[in-house]
């Protein structure tokens, strides 16, 4: 058993036999020639054939992966026609009296080098495109058909790297997974694999091709990026189990996608998803969530070396809102404290960070920083249905201060002639006992509540969630917590606000019926739980 670690670009798992990708590589030799114009004519004819081939690949890609991803082949056709590229080839044939193959190969290498040297990972990945078209022209000159090899049943394709055209040319029904020695997650192969829903692992390292052979059993785990060749019994059965549970999830997806979250007696609720970065939007849509119930904005701050600017934040919020189209997106404002901070925050060490200067307390004590986030949110609001949620609220006066800051931001934007939506929903997290207990006072001031059960449990039961010694005392189903949630729900509804749950408890299906009976309007869970919760909701009968 040999394990290789690469980078998974599409989350799926495959178990099967290896097929090492064979490329009919044409060895290009430098040959001195007399008739340079005949060589130039050969290049021209080969280019025409190459363009016809790419046109076919483009049409295949159009069907398989859609227009946006097929466009790279249009670019390939344009690259072949590029003036500089062609002039370089012709000049080399004329100037050095060399054969057409050599001139194309060297020119392709030179242009690929140019792309590799650009200080930008996206442009570096374009070197593959130039090499792809150059190899195709050379193959066309020698009548080499680089068509897909005959695959015997479904197999895991292993290669040093795959050109986009090679990926598309492979018979998709016979490919279990792609594994490559090189490649970047920006490469079109990675993008295409994602769109073809095929597990792909890139960058497992040069040596792997010399250590594997056709027909070897292997596991390609696109979730972890692990590629295991000749796995032992135990590893193999674990992988098969994982494969089964994936299949189960897929079946659930098939069964429940597009269905309503409705109980047997007709009560509808919303099931939204929690995410912590823009990268998870795909999972939200894939799992058919009705919206985003909690978008944690912390990553914007934690992944930065200085406060993220209004523009940086605006771009991210805009992208999330646009990607979710008309679905609701609830973005939680910065929720960090001394236990989880970036250096530039310069927060002092605290004896007890869970009870310290965190979340809304930090934001209200640094209003200038807070206003940058609010401005970015308000500006982005015109691109979708935005809800803004404030964490760690304990009092009415905090909420009054927040409202005053929101008003300031709105007035400033109006003065700057910048648009914002007038239907933004404002809400708060119910994650302190205080907020739940005075929820009758808070409800009239907001559009919604969202219960953060993790912190609510910790603060209500005085139990540190991370402390293993008190684990036995930390009963997440404790009646005190359920009563606080019920109380908040009643007060929310009394004042026309809706209430959701976005903590871990929202995905606890043993409580789904309890929550529905309390009148909870929305459950926000990690994307992979959306359909499971939907399945449970659809089996509940509240009339009994």
């Amino acid at each position: 058993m040999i394990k290789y670690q690469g980078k998974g670009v599409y989350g799926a798992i495959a178990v099967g036999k290896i097929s090492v990708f064979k490329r009919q590589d044409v060895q290009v030799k430098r040959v001195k020639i007399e008739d340079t114009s005949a060589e130039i004519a050969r290049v021209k004819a080969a280019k025409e054939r190459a363009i016809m081939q790419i046109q076919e690949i483009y049409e295949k890609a159009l069907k398989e992966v859609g227009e946006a991803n097929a466009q790279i082949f249009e670019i390939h056709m344009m690259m072949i026609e590029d003036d500089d590229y062609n002039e370089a080839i012709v000049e080399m044939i004329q100037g050095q009296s060399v054969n057409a193959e050599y001139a194309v190969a060297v020119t392709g290498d030179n242009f690929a080098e140019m792309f590799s040297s650009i200080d930008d990972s996206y442009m570096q990945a374009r070197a593959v495109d130039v090499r792809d078209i150059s190899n195709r022209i050379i193959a066309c000159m020698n009548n080499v058909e680089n068509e897909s090899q005959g695959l015997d049943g479904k197999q895991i394709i292993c290669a040093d790297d795959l050109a986009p055209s090679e990926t598309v040319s492979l018979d998709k029904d016979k490919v279990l997974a792609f594994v490559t020695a090189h490649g970047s997650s920006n490469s079109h192969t990675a993008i295409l694999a994602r769109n073809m829903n095929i597990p792909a692992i890139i960058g497992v390292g040069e040596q792997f091709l010399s250590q594997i052979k056709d027909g070897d059993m292997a596991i390609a785990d696109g979730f972890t990026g692990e590629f295991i060749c000749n796995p032992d019994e135990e590893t193999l059965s674990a992988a098969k189990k994982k494969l089964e549970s994936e299949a189960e999830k897929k079946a659930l997806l098939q069964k429940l996608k597009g269905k309503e979250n409705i109980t047997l007696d007709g009560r509808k609720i919303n099931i939204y998803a929690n995410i912590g970065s823009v990268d998870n939007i795909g999972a939200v849509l894939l799992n058919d969530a009705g919206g985003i119930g909690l978008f944690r904005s912390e990553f914007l701050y934690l992944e930065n070396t200085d406060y993220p600017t209004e523009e940086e934040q605006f771009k991210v919020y805009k992208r999330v809102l646009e990607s979710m189209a008309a679905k609701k997106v609830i973005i939680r404002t910065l929720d960090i404290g001394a236990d989880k901070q970036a250096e530039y925050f310069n927060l002092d060490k605290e004896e007890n960070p869970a009870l310290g200067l965190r979340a809304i307390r930090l934001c209200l004590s640094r209003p200038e920083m807070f206003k940058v986030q609010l401005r970015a949110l308000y500006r982005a609001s015109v691109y979708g249905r935005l809800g803004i949620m404030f964490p760690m609220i304990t009092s009415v006066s905090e909420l009054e201060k927040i409202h005053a800051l929101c008003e300031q931001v709105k007035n400033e934007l109006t003065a700057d002639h910048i648009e914002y939506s007038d239907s933004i929903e404002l809400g708060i997290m119910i994650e302190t006992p205080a907020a739940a207990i005075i929820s009758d006072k808070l409800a009239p001031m907001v559009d919604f509540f969202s219960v953060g059960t993790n912190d609510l449990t910790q603060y209500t039961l005085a139990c540190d969630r991370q402390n293993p010694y008190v684990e036995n005392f930390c009963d997440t189903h404790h009646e005190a917590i359920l009563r606080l949630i019920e109380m908040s729900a009643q007060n929310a509804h009394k004042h026309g606000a809706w209430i959701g749950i976005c903590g871990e408890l929202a995905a606890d299906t043993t409580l789904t019926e309890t929550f529905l009976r309390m009148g909870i309007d929305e459950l926000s869970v990690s994307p992979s739980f959306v359909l499971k919760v939907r399945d449970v909701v659809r089996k509940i009968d509240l009339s009994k």
Partner: protein
Amino acid sequence: MKTFEYTIKDELGIHARPAGMLAKTAKELDSEITITKGEKTVGATKLMALMGMGIKCGETITVTINGGDEEASETAMKQFFESNL
């Protein structure tokens, strides 16, 4: 000769797709279009050279229009950048 400056707003900069579209658009005009960033200038119809500039989001380029119906070409180029980059 006409020139205008433009600051790239697309997150990926002038990547393959818009470079292809730019080259295509520039070819259709009867003026000669060049793109300048810093000390480097390339013809807008030259796809690979254009990509080779590695123009990123937030960078400002100068677009120069020479010959033909400069006014119409300028409008067309401005429109192209506004809606694609």
